[in-house]
């Protein structure tokens, strides 16, 4: 607690600095794309949010595994704390994507594989959170949601593959990979990387904060129960 408490302000500060810095850099100090005009700047929110949206699920998977194997209480709470964060990142990704899609593809929404898979990921977040909310006993809830997370991951991966099979879409391929030739121009890449790292830090700080809140909430309810006992 004290360690995370000590780290938290620094991470927060750094995250805010990088996100704000990266966004300002990207918004005001990069040229407009020759094809996409100013709309290209959505990329500085869209891509980091999308990356973190799927990344969060993997963090939850790892935390759930730790809970199942080691029954480490904090990891269960961390998974619980991460879910809404991931959900919001996913939502931001969907939203900015939709806003971007309007000028780029002429529609708000397109049943493109990547978009679709992302939407399903959003549904998984909803189901996961609904299950947490539905179970009163925290240990029971942790057990059930952990199993759901494991099973859900498998099906999410299958769904991803299935969707690729179903529809080849409009969405961009990887444009930031290290080995391909046609990476985005460096002018775009540097602020983009700043934003991605910033969003990552933001994720860490939010999950830390929420986990701390969850722990305190658990302690509080324990204390209230104790009070009622006495």
């Amino acid at each position: 607690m004290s360690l995370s408490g000590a780290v938290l302000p620094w991470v927060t500060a750094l995250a805010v600095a990088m996100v704000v810095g990266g966004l300002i850099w990207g918004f005001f100090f990069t040229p407009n794309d020759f094809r996409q005009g100013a709309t290209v700047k959505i990329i500085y929110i869209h891509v980091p949010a999308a990356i973190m949206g799927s990344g969060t699920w993997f963090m939850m998977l790892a935390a759930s595994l730790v809970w199942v194997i080691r029954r480490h209480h904090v990891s269960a709470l961390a998974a619980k704390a991460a879910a809404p964060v991931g959900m919001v990142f996913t939502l931001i990704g969907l939203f900015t994507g939709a806003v971007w899609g309007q000028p780029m593809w002429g529609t708000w929404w397109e049943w493109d594989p990547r978009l679709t898979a992302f939407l399903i990921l959003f549904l998984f977040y909803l189901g996961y959170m609904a299950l947490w909310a539905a179970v009163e006993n925290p240990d029971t809830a942790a057990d059930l949601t952990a199993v759901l997370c494991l099973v859900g991951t498998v099906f999410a991966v299958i769904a991803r593959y299935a969707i690729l099979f179903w529809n080849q879409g409009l969405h961009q391929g990887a444009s930031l990979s290290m080995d391909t030739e046609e990476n985005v121009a460096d002018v775009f890449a540097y602020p983009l990387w700043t934003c991605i790292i910033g969003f990552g830090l933001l994720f860490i700080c939010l999950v830390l904060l929420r986990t701390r809140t969850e722990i305190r909430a658990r302690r509080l309810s324990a204390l209230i129960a104790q009070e009622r006992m006495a």
Partner: protein
Amino acid sequence: MLEITSLACARGAVQVLQNVDLNLIAGEAVVLRGPNGAGKTTLLRIIAGLSPALSGQIKCASDSIAYSGHADGIKTNLTVAQNLNFWAGVFGQRDITTAFDAFDLHDLRDRPAGEMSAGQKRRLSLARLLVTGRPIWCLDEPTVSLDQENVARFASAVQAHLARGGAALIATHIDLGLADARIFDIKPFMCRKLVETDPFADWEAA
């Protein structure tokens, strides 16, 4: 047959029993007593393996316990005989006539279980115990809704089970008429404390 040592039981986040020691030997019936909310149901469920114990040991042969709870576990759409045959099948038994005899269910044999009165349902649910073929009966208020005659019937079924070398642990508030049953009052073992007084206290320090 059943050996319980320093068992601690919790329901939800609250510990309700501590340091329970109980020995059940073949041919013995123990009547579990305690005021409402003492923890009888909790204890029986833990012994039956449905809930985990907080600490302590329960020693008994595996697959030796027949549990019967507050609910009847009866399929209202099936007849009495179908209900009983199903459970006999699950427990690998064949013969359901002894069970019919013991609780005088012959007349109700082909009655859909839903069309029976509360006491009749209860009799069916008790008859199930006889088709489990298991030695240790863990019963939670088995005589609810039974009239005097049927309470006596239940008592003699228990006696017969004991005579066959079985054992029984019965939570109840009324007098069962089991002559030499040992009374085990759980009142002394009652406690009310939170299981995890503060599960994350050490995290605050860390």
